[in-house]
C-alpha cells in the first residue's frame, strides 16, 4: 500500500539533517513515496515511525525476491500452526575453477534434475558460483554461463572487482555472498538489484552485520555458517524463533545454509533455511530430497490433489480391470503404486473429492454412488473397457449396492488397505 508523501513526512524526524542523502525530509518522503529511496537510509527513525511507515517491517521475517522466486515472510515456528509459506530454494555449488566442459556437465545435470510428483514438477532452483580461480574475467564468464541455465544465481566472492564484474550478468535475480566488508558488497548488490548474504562467526555477529547492512540494502539474507552442523541447526532455529516470537528485527531475514550431504540438506530445509546448498547432483538422492521439501512445505490445510481422470497403470487395455478411488494425492499415490507393483495393468478412475481421502470423502458425501457415477459418465469410462465392471475400495463396501443401481455398472469390492492390492490384483486376472 503506497503512502502519500505527506503521510510519510508526518512520521519523519523533520530535522533536514541530510543523513539519508536527500536535502530535506520532505524530499526524502517524496522519494520514499515512489520507492526511489529506502526507509533504511534514515538512521533516525524510531520503532514507531518505522512501524507506521513500512508495510515490510510488519513482516517478522522479511521477504526477499530472487528472480521469480520469493523467500522469507514466514509467520510460524511449526508448520502445524498454520503453514510454511515459501519452499526452501535448493542451490548447487560450483567453483569457477572448473573447466568449461565440467561446467557444461554440471549445468546440464542441473537442468535434468526434474521430477513429476503429484502433478507438480520438482526442480532445483539456483546455482552458487564460488570465486576461486583468482581471475575476475573467468569468474564473470562462468557466472554468465550459469545465469543462462537458471533463474537465480549466488556469487560467492571476496574480491570487490570480481564481484562487480560478475554482478552485471545476474541483475535482479541473485545474491552476493561475502565473508567480510559487508557494507561494500551490499552497495554493489544494491546497484544491481541483488540481495546481500550477510554472515558472522556467531549469531550475535550475524545480527550486528545485518544491522549495519540494513542502512544500505533492504534485501538481506543471513548466512548461517558457524562451523558445525549442530551450531547451524541451533542458529537457524533461534533465528526463526527470535524473529517471530520476539520480533527481533536484526535477525528477521531469510536464512542461507550449506549442506555437506543430502541428509544434512534435509534437516536444513526442515529447520528453517530458506536457501540450502548442495555440492553434487545425484538424482537418486535428489528425488527423495525434493520430495521431502514438497511434503514439509505442503499447506496442512490444503492437501495436494490430483485431477479427476482415468489413469492407465501399466499397459492397460480394454480388458484391464477398472478401479475407483478419490483424488487425495496421498490416496492416489498409494493406490496407483500398489497396483503398479502388482504388475497387473489396470485403469484407475480418480473421482474429484476435493482432496479428501476415501473415508473422509465418503463421510462428507463427496465420494458417493452419485459422485462416482457422475465421474464415470463425465470421463466416458464405458468407452475405455469392454465390461462395465469396477472395483471400489473396501473401506466403502457399503456403497456397492447403491452404486450398482445408480451407475448400471457391476461393482466388486476391493481390499481395505492399499497394500493388500498387490495380492488382490492377481485375483482379478
Amino acid at each position, binding site marked *: 500500500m503506497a503512502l502519500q508523501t505527506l503521510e510519510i513526512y508526518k512520521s519523519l524526524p523533520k530535522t533536514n539533517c541530510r543523513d539519508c542523502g536527500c536535502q530535506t525530509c520532505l524530499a526524502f518522503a517524496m522519494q520514499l513515496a515512489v520507492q526511489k529511496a529506502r526507509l533504511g537510509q534514515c538512521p533516525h527513525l524510531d520503532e514507531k515511525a518505522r512501524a507506521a511507515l513500512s508495510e515490510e517491517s510488519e513482516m517478522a521475517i522479511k521477504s526477499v525476491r530472487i528472480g521469480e522466486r520469493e523467500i522469507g515472510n514466514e509467520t510460524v515456528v*511449526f*508448520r*502445524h500452526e498454520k503453514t510454511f509459506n515459501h519452499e526452501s530454494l535448493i542451490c548447487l555449488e560450483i567453483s569457477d575453477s572448473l573447466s568449461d566442459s565440467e561446467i557444461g556437465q554440471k549445468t546440464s545435470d542441473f537442468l*535434468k534434475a*526434474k*521430477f513429476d*510428483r503429484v502433478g507438480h514438477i520438482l526442480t532445483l532452483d539456483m546455482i552458487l558460483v564460488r570465486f576461486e580461480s583468482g581471475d575476475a574475467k573467468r569468474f564473470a564468464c562462468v557466472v554468465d554461463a550459469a545465469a543462462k541455465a537458471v533463474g537465480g544465481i549466488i556469487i560467492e566472492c571476496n574480491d570487490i572487482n570480481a564481484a562487480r564484474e560478475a554482478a552485471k550478468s545476474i541483475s535482479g535475480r541473485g545474491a552476493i555472498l561475502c565473508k567480510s566488508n559487508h557494507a561494500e558488497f551490499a552497495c554493489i548488490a544494491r546497484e544491481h538489484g541483488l540481495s546481500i548474504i550477510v554472515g558472522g562467526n556467531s*549469531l*550475535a555477529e550475524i*545480527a550486528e552485520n545485518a544491522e549495519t547492512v540494513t542502512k544500505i540494502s533492504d534485501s538481506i539474507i543471513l548466512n548461517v555458517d558457524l562451523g*558445525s*552442523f*549442530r*551450531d547451524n*541447526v*541451533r*542458529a537457524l*532455529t*533461534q533465528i526463526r*524463533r*527470535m524473529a517471530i516470537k*520476539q520480533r*527481533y528485527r536484526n535477525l528477521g531475514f531469510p536464512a542461507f545454509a550449506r549442506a555437506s550431504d*543430502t*541428509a*544434512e540438506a*534435509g*534437516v536444513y530445509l*526442515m*529447520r528453517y533455511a530458506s536457501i540450502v546448498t548442495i555440492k553434487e547432483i*545425484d*538424482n*537418486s*538422492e*535428489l*528425488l*527423495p*530430497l525434493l*520430495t*521431502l521439501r*514438497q*511434503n*514439509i512445505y*505442503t499447506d*496442512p490445510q490444503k492437501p495436494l490433489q490430483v485431477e479427476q481422470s482415468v489413469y492407465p497403470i501399466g499397459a492397460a487395455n480394454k480388458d484391464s480391470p477398472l478401479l475407483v478411488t478419490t483424488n487425495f494425492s*496421498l490416496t492416489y*499415490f*498409494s493406490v496407483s*503404486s*500398489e497396483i*503398479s*507393483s502388482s504388475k497387473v495393468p489396470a485403469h484407475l478412475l480418480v473421482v474429484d473429492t476435493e482432496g479428501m481421502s476415501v473415508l473422509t470423502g465418503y463421510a462428507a458425501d463427496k465420494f458417493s454412488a452419485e459422485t462416482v457415477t457422475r465421474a464415470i459418465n463425465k470421463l466416458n469410462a464405458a468407452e475405455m473397457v469392454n465390461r462395465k465392471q469396477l472395483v471400489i475400495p473396501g473401506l466403502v463396501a457399503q456403497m456397492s449396492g447403491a452404486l450398482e443401481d445408480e451407475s448400471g455398472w457391476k461393482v466388486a469390492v476391493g481390499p481395505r488397505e492399499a*497394500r493388500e492390492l498387490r495380492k488382490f490384483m492377481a485375483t482379478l486376472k
Partner: protein
Amino acid sequence: MLPAIEDRYMGRINEITVGLKKAGGEDMLPLLGFDRNRAPLLGLEIQDIKPEMPDTLAAAYGDATDDPVNWAAFCEKQGIDLLSVRFEGANPQGKNRTDEEAAGILKCIQENARVPLLVYGTGNKARDGLLMDKLGRVLRKNSIIGNAEEEGYKSVAAAAIANDHYIISFSPIDINIAKQMNILLTEFGIKQERIIMDPLASALGYGLEYSYSIIERLKLAALAGDKMLSMPIICNLTDVWNCKESYDTENPSWGDAGKRGIMWETLTAVSMITAGADIVIMRHPQALKNTKKLIKRYLQNGTTDPGDI
C-alpha cells in the same frame, strides 16, 4: 545484545531404559543444540519368516534372511541399539506357526542377542492374545512389546504387565486417539512410565508430513505438561520399502535404485528424529548407518552423554 533464547518448559518426556541405554527424558524440543540432547535409539527389524522384499533391500542381507536367528545375528553387527522381531509367521493366514514354535525361535534369538528386543505379533487380534502372552514370558524383563491398539489392546497389555515389559501404544496419526490409548492403558493397569507411543510413521512422499506434525504436536503437549502424552515416541518405518521410489528401476531419470531406496529411508528416519522421535526402527543397514552418522555429527559439539552414540 541478543535477547535471551534459553527454553524452559514445564513438562518433561518420561525416561525409559532400553538395555544399557536410555531413551526419552528430554525437557526441550529436539535439535535445539542445547547440551541436554540425547541420541535417539536406532534399530532394525527382522521377521520369523523370510518376507517379500524388493531387491534393493534384500541385497543388503543376502541369505541372512533365510533363518531368523542368523538374520538377528547379522543385524547385531550393524550397530543397532535394539532389535525388533515380528512374528508374522504365526499368522493363521500364513505359516500359522504355533505359540510354542514362535517362543522357541524367540528364545534362540534372545540367547544370542546382546541388544534388547522389541517383539510384535501378527497384527491379527484373535491370534495375538495368546501369542503375546507366550512371547512375553520368554522375553527378558523390560523388553518392549507391541502393539496395543484401540481394538484388542487388553491381551497385549496383560502380557506387558504380567512380565514387566514396556508396551507400545499405537494410534493412527491422531493426537486424540494417542491420548485415549494412553488413558485406556493406564486405566487397565499399565504405569505411565512403561508406555512408548507409536503415532504411525508414514513414509516419505506418502504422508510423511502428517506424522512429522503429529510428533511435533505430541512433543509440545508433553513439554507443556500433559502427563498423558509425556511418553517417548517410537517410529517404525514399516512402509518405506513398499514405496515405488525405494525400488523402481524403470525410470532412468530417478537414478540408481539401490541408493535411492537407502536415501528414501534415511530421509524418512531423519525427519521423524527432527520432529522428535526417540526410537526409530528401520530396515536397511546402510540407511541406519547414514542416520547414525548424522546424529553423531549433530552431537559432536559437546554432549553430556558421549556414551550414547
